[in-house]
C-alpha cells in the first residue's frame, strides 16, 4: 500500500527529510513494523527507530501507539515528544 510519511523537529533534521511518499512492503502493517522497516535504512535511521529513543507517531493527525494498523493512503508522522506551550 501507499502512504505518506512526515518527519518533524530533530527527526526531520537527522533524516534530512520532511516528507516522503512510499510503497510499503507487504509485511509492514502497523507503526511498529514500519519503525523496524525504517531502522533498516542505515545508521542514522537505525539510531532513530531501533526503539532506544522515544519517537511518537500519528496517523492522519491522531496520536497513536506502536500497535496501530496502517492503511492505504494514510498520512503517518514521526516526531519527538512535544515541547510547546
Amino acid at each position, binding site marked *: 500500500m501507499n502512504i505518506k510519511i*512526515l518527519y*518533524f*523537529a*530533530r527527526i526531520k533534521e537527522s533524516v534530512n527529510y520532511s516528507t516522503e511518499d512510499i510503497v510499503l512492503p507487504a509485511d509492514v502493517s502497523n507503526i511498529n513494523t514500519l519503525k523496524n522497516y525504517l531502522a533498516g535504512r542505515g545508521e542514522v535511521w537505525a539510531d532513530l527507530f531501533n526503539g532506544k529513543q522515544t519517537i511518537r507517531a*500519528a496517523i492522519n*493527525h*491522531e*496520536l497513536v501507539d506502536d500497535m496501530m494498523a496502517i492503511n492505504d493512503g494514510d498520512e503517518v*508522522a514521526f*516526531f*519527538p*515528544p*512535544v*515541547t*510547546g*506551550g
Partner: protein
Amino acid sequence: MTVQVQTADFDVAAELAAMRTASADIGAVVSFIGQVRDINDGDAVSTLTLEHYPGMTERALEQIEQEAKSRWNISGSLIIHRVGMLQPLEQIVLVAVASAHRGEAFKACEFIMDYLKTQAPFWKKESTPDGERWVEAKISDDEAQSRWKQS
C-alpha cells in the same frame, strides 16, 4: 471554543474582553500567558523557534478544548499558540476559559495547558551561545498531565 495557530502576536486585552463580555452569565475568566524566557537549563537563550504539524496541531487543540468542555461547566475557551521565531519576553501561548464560577475555570484552564504541553505537536528549538538545540520534553509535564487521567 476557539483555536488559533499563528506567527503573529496576539492582543491579550482584546481576546479576554471578547471572552468576558460574550455573556453576562460569565462570572470568571481564568487565563494563562506563556512567554519566552531568556534562560533555560542554565543557558542564555537568544531566540526560540517553534515548529509545528499544521493540520494535526489545530485538531489536537480542538480535542483538548472538547475534553475540557466535557469535564467542566465552562462557557467558552480560547487557545492561541504562536509558531516561528520568537525573542525572549515575547508571548508564546494564551489559554483562557470563561465560566459562571471560578473553580471550573481554574481547573479547565490548567487542564488545557497540561494537555497542550504533552499532546499538541509543537517543538521548540533554542539558540544559545553554544549553538542551536532542541528543547527536551520534561517528565514533570507528563506527570502534570497524568494527574487528570480518569479511571
